[in-house]
């Protein structure tokens, strides 16, 4: 079941100032803004990789005390994928199932289905090592690894940033296709406006540690905040 996320007066010294934000269960939100605007830090607060200096974070209405159980219900996809180099593709994907002590056959079946869906036929890729894969292939494995255990929350930190535009587009499509069947609350950090509008319904714009816009994705080009205008102009979106 997807979880709701709420920030109440959250600050991180020097980076975020008094953030108030509510994300409903099952929503897909994009965090967007310039580098250093605070979007990545906000994302990392959700699974405890960053700590607030002030304010409260609530997941499903409760402040998490121990992040480890929460992280096991949260998918985390990053640029560069962070795949374990000493494990095969299958072992990487099956990391969380193994940790959660799933049945071996169930892991196998789910991994197979996921990898096939993501365009990496299981028979060809299961026993390969990450270093023998291209950047795009690695990131597909990263996606599979993050969502195989049906997380309540899916956090993505510029996952397609280091890939070329064609591969990036393919992955965005694969991502949207997959996430429709996996019911999770999604927070997607990106600096690419077009990508934000493709993967999310709601876009939150950060500037200098504050939220300056929070609208439906398709309303964004019409927004009048200066930071948003600058983003739209830079992205040269078709209007």
């Amino acid at each position: 079941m997807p979880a709701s996320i709420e920030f109440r007066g959250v600050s991180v010294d020097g980076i975020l100032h008094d953030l108030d934000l509510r994300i409903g269960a099952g929503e897909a939100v994009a965090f967007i803004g310039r580098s250093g605007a605070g979007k990545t830090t906000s994302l990392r607060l959700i699974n405890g990789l960053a700590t607030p200096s002030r304010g409260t974070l609530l997941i499903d209405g409760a402040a998490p005390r121990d992040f480890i159980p929460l992280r096991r219900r949260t998918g985390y996809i990053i640029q560069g994928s962070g795949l374990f180099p000493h494990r095969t593709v299958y072992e990487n994907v099956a990391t969380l199932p193994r940790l959660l002590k799933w049945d071996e056959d169930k892991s196998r079946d789910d991994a197979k289905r996921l990898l096939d869906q993501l365009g990496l036929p299981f028979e060809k890729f299961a026993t390969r090592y990450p270093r023998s894969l291209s950047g795009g292939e690695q990131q597909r494995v990263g996606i599979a690894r993050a969502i195989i255990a049906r997380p309540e929350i899916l956090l993505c930190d510029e996952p397609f940033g280091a890939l070329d535009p064609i591969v990036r587009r393919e992955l965005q499509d694969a991502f949207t296709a997959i996430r429709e069947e996996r019911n999770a609350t999604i927070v997607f950090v990106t600096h690419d406006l077009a990508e934000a509008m493709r993967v999310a319904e709601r876009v939150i714009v950060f500037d200098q540690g504050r939220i300056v816009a929070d609208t439906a994705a398709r309303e964004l080009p019409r927004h009048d905040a200066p930071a948003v205008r600058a983003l739209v102009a830079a992205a040269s979106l078709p209007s």
Partner: protein
Amino acid sequence: MSANIARATGEHVMIVAIAVVVAILIGVPLGVWAARRARAGGAALRVVDAIQTIPSLALFGFLIPIPFIGGIGMRTAIVALILYSLLPVVRNTVTGIRGVEPSVREAGVAMGFTPRQLLFEVELPLAMPSIVAGVRIATVTAIGVATIAAAIGGGGLGTLIFRGVAMVDTRLILAGALPAAALALIADVVMTMIERRLIR
């Protein structure tokens, strides 16, 4: 004579093996601890480094008057060898663990690994080639340093070398030196093979 060589070789292998195993048991956890802490870890590395700079004969000599671990004989020799073997093991453990890609470590943390799981599932396996290299260096060094153990009654192949030097008897010297060199070579080759296997 060959019985002497066989016994001396056996003693030599034994004191080196015990010392290296204990150095691993102390050094790897110490290295893991030091890798996590920048300042205390740096201090620990400096201490271990300083021990290595003490000339081996002097270190054996220092240990003699210390109660429990000192005195004359194999036990003191093993203690000295452990101290000598620590630096390569600790340093290589630190390098190996710090060398784990930050994104890989973060992926593990984000997946909900406990610190212990992170250590055993991610950090140690990735640090293993470096750690084995450290063990290899420690072993080869220990085989050489162990020849000094004979000066304090520690046994081993050094006994033959010292006797040979005292009697100006080249055959005796070689009877000690050649097996020692062979042991060092074998250890180096075997461990390099293990390292290569691990780097895959």
